């Protein structure tokens, strides 16, 4: 289990949100000064004991106090009213959003910004726009200069994802919080679950999953390199680092080579046992190394055993690899009646995967219990098994590609409208549910007319369901 407190403590992770809307991440080491540039600086100790999400004002150099909600509201309202002043002439003047956009472009620097300025200040620009632009700039500068305040946000799915999208969207495969939460929900993620995860988003998704489950779960992470890239985990605090999670027994990791060749992987990791005598003679350094290698071996062995056992409660795939190459190796490890979720930044990738999954099937044996059989009739159970072992395949049903986005609105009196522009790139999610199917199925809910159950032995049962 991972602890989570609404109170900021020593070594707590915190996201500092500045009036400029920029977000920074810090781990609050005791007795440390955090500089926020032109917004001032503060001492970490002064944050300890405070609740997350409050707004703090730097009212004197290095002195902070909690701003009461009403104070924040009135400041925000003033700001909004200023903005509205310009916005309410609405479509007859350059809009607030357009100005914001220009300002953003200018901030980003480079040619586009210059172009924007050129456009704004070119001779074709009439006087009142110049005024308006100046006004917007003034308001913005004022806000940035006089509002020496910040918010101390608690790490969570939404905040961590926003931070990563701002800082390195390609590293996290442009994964939005909306897609993450939808995958967890469709994946029936719940405390106590056992999940198989392929996560090449720097483990942003894994972190979100662990946050939602409070660490009350067992996750096997399959990764393509020697070591997993899990750099986003630390954004939830040091309890979430890979090392800590492995130690707590929450996380197991396997790379693809270990997945496809478990015996060889174990052989490679094998360390010859030392005798008690040899151990006693070892230098401390060597002994430690020996023990750590022994532990690694044991961990790999247990991870592989757990993986081979299969029957995972869900499969989550967020990978730069072609989804089908991942799914072919991992689908057999998922339990029956359990969900499979695949993320991609591109719909086209999932459309191809969807087509391949229509056709995917994996021959399997089906053991059935029976109230009487369970205890005392093993032979008849075996008989039934014999009867059906070639007639069953694992398949996926309820395959769908989902597009989920949120559309934010401005809610101001007399000024309600959707925000003018939002982030465009957002990924897609493919979902399916694993079932055990008789091989001779050809139509949804119905058997083919002349092929009764068990009559055929076809490999490809192309039922669309």
């Amino acid at each position: 289990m991972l602890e989570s407190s609404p109170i900021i403590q020593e070594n707590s992770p915190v996201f500092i949100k500045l009036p400029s809307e920029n977000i920074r991440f810090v781990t609050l080491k005791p007795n440390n000064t955090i500089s926020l540039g032109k917004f001032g600086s503060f001492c970490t100790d002064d944050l300890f004991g405070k609740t997350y999400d409050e707004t703090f004002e730097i009212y004197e150099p290095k002195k902070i106090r909690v701003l009461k909600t009403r104070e924040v509201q009135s400041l925000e309202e003033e700001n909004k009213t200023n903005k509205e002043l310009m916005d309410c002439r609405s479509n007859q003047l350059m809009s607030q959003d357009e100005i914001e956009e220009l300002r953003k472009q200018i901030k980003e620097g480079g040619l586009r910004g210059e172009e924007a300025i050129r456009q704004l200040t070119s001779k074709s620009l009439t006087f009142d726009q110049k005024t308006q632009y100046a006004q917007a700039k003034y308001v913005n500068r004022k806000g940035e200069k006089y509002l020496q305040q910040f918010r101390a946000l608690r790490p969570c799915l939404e905040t961590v994802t926003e931070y990563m999208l701002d800082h390195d969207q390609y590293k996290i495969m442009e994964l939005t919080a909306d897609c993450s939460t939808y995958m967890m929900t469709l994946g029936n993620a719940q405390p106590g679950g056992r999940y198989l995860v392929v996560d090449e988003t720097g483990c942003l998704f894994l972190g979100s999953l662990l946050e939602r489950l409070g660490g009350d779960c067992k996750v096997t992470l399959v990764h393509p390199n020697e070591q997993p890239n899990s750099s986003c985990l630390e954004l939830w605090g040091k309890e979430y680092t890979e090392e800590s999670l492995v130690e707590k027994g929450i996380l197991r990791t396997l790379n693809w080579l270990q997945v496809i060749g478990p015996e060889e992987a174990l052989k490679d990791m094998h360390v010859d046992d030392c005798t008690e005598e040899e151990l006693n003679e070892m230098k401390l350094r060597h002994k430690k190394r020996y023990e750590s290698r022994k532990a690694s071996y044991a961990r790999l062995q247990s991870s592989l055993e757990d993986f081979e056992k299969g029957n995972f409660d869900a499969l989550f795939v967020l990978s730069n690899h072609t989804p089908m190459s991942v799914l072919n190796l991992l689908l057999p490890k998922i339990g029956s009646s359990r969900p499979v979720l695949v993320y991609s930044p591109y719909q086209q990738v999932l459309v191809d995967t969807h087509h391949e999954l229509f056709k995917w099937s994996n021959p399997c044996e089906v053991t059935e219990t029976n109230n009487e059989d369970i205890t005392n009739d093993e032979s008849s159970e075996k008989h039934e098994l014999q009867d059906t072992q070639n007639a069953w395949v694992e398949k996926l049903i309820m395959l769908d590609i989902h597009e989920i986005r949120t559309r934010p609105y401005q809610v101001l009196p007399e000024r309600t409208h959707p925000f003018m522009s939002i982030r465009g790139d957002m990924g897609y999610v493919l979902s399916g549910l694993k079932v055990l199917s008789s091989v001779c199925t050809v139509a949804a809910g119905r058997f083919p007319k002349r092929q009764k159950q068990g009559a055929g032995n076809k490999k490809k049962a192309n039922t669309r369901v």
Partner: protein
Amino acid sequence: MVFSKYKDFVEDGDLVVAWIGRNKLLPLKIEDGQTFHNQYGAFPHSEMIGKRYGQQISSSAKQGFIYLLQPTPELWTLALPHRTQIVYTPDISIIFEKLRIVHGTRVIEAGTGSASMSHALSRTVGPSGKLYSYEYHASRYETALQEFRDHNMLDEINGNTHLTHRDVCKDGFETEGLPLKVDAIFLDLPAPWEAIPHLIKHVNRNGTTRVCCFSPCMEQIQRSASALQVSGWCDIEMLEVSYKQWTARKSRVIRVDDSIDRLKEVKRHRTEGFERRKERQRLEKEFAESAENGEELNDSQVSTPSEPPSKSPTSTEKIHKRIREGDEEYEWSNVARVDSNLKNHTSYLLFAVHLPSQLDNESESTE
């Protein structure tokens, strides 16, 4: 809790979600001796007991099948009997993100409605969390109570859910005099603004509390937003969930060259037909002449040219036959389609945050 842990085999007394066909799910309470019927036949429950979850079951006459799925809140949402308009999974998942619903969260929900949200909340907050659900409508309350009991969700029987029959707009949220404090509040009410003033008693003193109002109309949102601001909530945000579901399909690849070949074929037919017509005219003339001369021609000779001309197997006729999507004789490209009936709107989602510092304001203002 029935819904919270996976199991492998179907047992007598289990609730299963039966997959009947694409987008057709049905809740099924397994009772030895009962039988489920649909248009493809009979499915005795006795044959379901002992089967694996996810396994296909064929009807007695082997004419149809169903899958026995283990219920999850998401499958339940697709299968449940509608008592009210329900909250669907896309909205639920976004609400979870924004309200920070995680393991251990304490939540208020009003009203219970068809309980699609209740099941998802109960599952996600888990054994260390708590769900307080309120329903105004008497018969809906009774039905939900029975459902929660059947699904082992009620706190009185080791679950995490507490259901109260109450008009929260009038009587607030207090339960049995407990000092109820929660982390998140979900209001799915016709007039959320009437319930909002009661919330202040139940916000955390040492942490953030978040609220979501779920309303279909813009005007409801505008009123709720004002009510929240008056009550000292901040970070007021409004959004809509835009959701689309796609299915992979195949679209036939036809090139202009294919049509040109067909046009050539048609032309060839016509030319042949023309020549045949000329031939017939010649023969008819000969016949007339020979008739004049007392000769007779066999009818069959005359009719010979009217037989169908030679044809290649990939030509005209093929075009008109109904082609099965994905038929391997043809070339296809992978495409995606949305449902012909698209959900364009469910409700607007209004969010706000309550911070402990606001409580200082209140104590000041009472001073």
